[in-house]
């Protein structure tokens, strides 16, 4: 009788101690007996800690080359409809007075006005598109990327009206019919949702640089953390005269240009 009770008591207290140890090792990382690496836990996102940004040295960009756009659009299964009405694009080249309409000057040098410039989502620090989205289908990530949840988007296109850079596209029809060479790296989208450049968040998580940065034969783009004063991109920003698109709107774009 006595022994039976003792046995039960020891069993229960033993379990209790184990449970405490287990809980402690889970809650206090230092306490764990075995070091486990759980990226989702270890690198817990701290909002605003990182702010991914891009710097485009347009002086190095080759006229007529659009390797960056080709690679980006392939990797992300961006459809090609070959008509302006249904067009979907994440990154493209355009003229100076279109990309920088408020910065064009009288008597601008032909060298500058005649070149083409890359346009893509600016991943603004104060993004109007995320502000107007009624479902948070487009939202600001902890690392500064303006992301899209294609499964939540209701297709109201408010973000398209709000974006002062024309960076967003809508799937006016089923995009899957217009993807010639599908890539397995990124999901395709459905008819009726908005999409845009995602700063390659799908590649960053694998430790890769954005597809456009990697594809460029001239290393025109520098990608890095704008919040890290020691990053390459901050170094170049420190030592060069750069500009952003429509800075007067207060959106604080994360894409910078050297003209």
């Amino acid at each position, binding site marked *: 009788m006595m022994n039976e009770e003792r046995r039960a008591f020891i069993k229960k207290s033993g379990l209790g101690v184990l449970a405490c140890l287990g809980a402690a090792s889970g809650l206090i990382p230092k306490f764990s007996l075995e070091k486990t690496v759980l990226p989702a836990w270890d690198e817990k996102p701290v909002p605003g800690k990182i702010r991914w940004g891009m710097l485009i040295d347009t002086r190095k960009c080759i006229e007529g080359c659009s390797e960056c756009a080709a690679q980006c659009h392939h990797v992300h299964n961006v459809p090609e409809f070959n008509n*302006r*009405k*249904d*067009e*979907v694009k994440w990154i493209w080249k*355009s003229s100076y*007075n*279109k*990309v920088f*309409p*408020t910065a064009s000057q009288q008597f601008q040098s032909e060298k500058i006005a005649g070149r083409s410039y890359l*346009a893509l989502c600016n991943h603004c620090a104060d993004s*109007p598109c995320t*502000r*107007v*989205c*009624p*479902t*948070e*289908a487009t939202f600001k990530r902890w690392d500064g990327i303006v992301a899209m949840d294609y499964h*939540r*988007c*209701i*297709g*109201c*296109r*408010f973000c*398209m*009206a*709000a*974006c*002062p*850079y*024309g960076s967003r*596209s*809508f*799937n*006016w*029809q*089923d995009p899957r019919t217009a993807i010639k060479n599908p890539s397995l790296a990124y999901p395709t989208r*459905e*008819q*009726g*949702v*908005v999409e845009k450049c995602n700063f390659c968040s799908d590649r960053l998580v694998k430790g890769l640089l954005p597809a456009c940065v990697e594809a460029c034969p001239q290393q025109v783009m520098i990608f890095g953390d704008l919040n890290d004063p020691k990053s390459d991109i901050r170094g170049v920003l420190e030592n060069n005269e750069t500009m952003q698109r*429509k800075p007067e*709107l*207060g*959106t604080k774009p994360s894409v910078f240009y050297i003209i």
Partner: protein
Amino acid sequence: MIEKALKGNRNYWIWISFLVLVIVAGLSAYSQQQWFGLTVTGMSRDVSWGLYIAQFTFLVGVAASAVMVVLPYYLHNYKAFGKIVIIGEFLAVSATLMCLLFILADMGRPDRVLNVMLYPSPHSMVFWDVMALNGYFILNLVSGWTVLGAERKGIPPPRWVRPVIYLSIPWAVSIHTVTAFLYAGLPGRHLWLTAVLAPRFLASAFAAGTSLLILVTLILKKTTGFDAGSEVRNKLAVIATYAGLTNFFLIGTEFFTAFYSNIPSHMHSLQYLFFGLDGQSNLVPWMWFSLMIGLGSVAVLLIPALRASSTWLPAACTGLVISIWIDKGVGLILGGFVPSPLEEIVQYSPTLIEISITLGIWAIGALLLTILLKVAVTVKNSAEG
């Protein structure tokens, strides 16, 4: 009470059948849009809103204008409006339903519409607009139906309905203010980025909505014998006149600011709408027609003798409605997208499918209004008789 809508003369049923036909055509067009996507419309990457959102904007104004009869009657005890309060409220109910349907028609994924409620985002004006419109729909339907039901039984309306009616007054102002805020807070859309957008919306709403109400009372007089009376119409016409004047004054101030400051981005959309930009000018005739017919109508309404005339009054009211419909239902929304953020000019024109869907939604609104007014008029006529 609804059974009263089931008894009508031949013309009533012809009208109902016509509306049902238009609705069926609209539904069939909508099934095409659902299947092939919004590519069947004239909208594009550059002009990403079109006829649907424009109709929505115009109809929010029609809905809000009910306050122009509710307020004088309930707050100022202006008894003459007692006969038409119900018409104003039911017009608001029908217009609000059309607004909601136009939003739905414009959505790429209407099956996900409840996401607006499931993930409420107070930073988004759409969230507030959906709340405001649904609330307004319920407020007007409940108050209109309850007061009418009491009238049918020959008893005073229940006491609880008064606060509901009082609430509908500021609510009416709020729906059009929030609707203006949908547009007026977007950086880089200079036609919309103006503090007078909300006041202008209210002024044009009270002009067009009240004019429409006058026309509805005239139609009712002709078709059902229910006459709101010329005193009522005259009073409404005065409201429409000064609201119309305020509207055109506000449009004028937009021109002054844009062109006197000479800031290109502020001038571009107005230039496109009224004079054409870079040779692109498909809205120019519309905008001038709108301005001319609007100013002409207001001028007619300003003259008391013409305002009281049974031919000039409906003509001027029709003119004012058309003018403001073009201004808000065509120019304002399309003009906001031209030029695009990359300063490109892409023109838009609606497709047949888009027009069919639009007419279908208008027919749904007209059908609801017909049914509601049929009930209201039958109740009122039998109460009098």
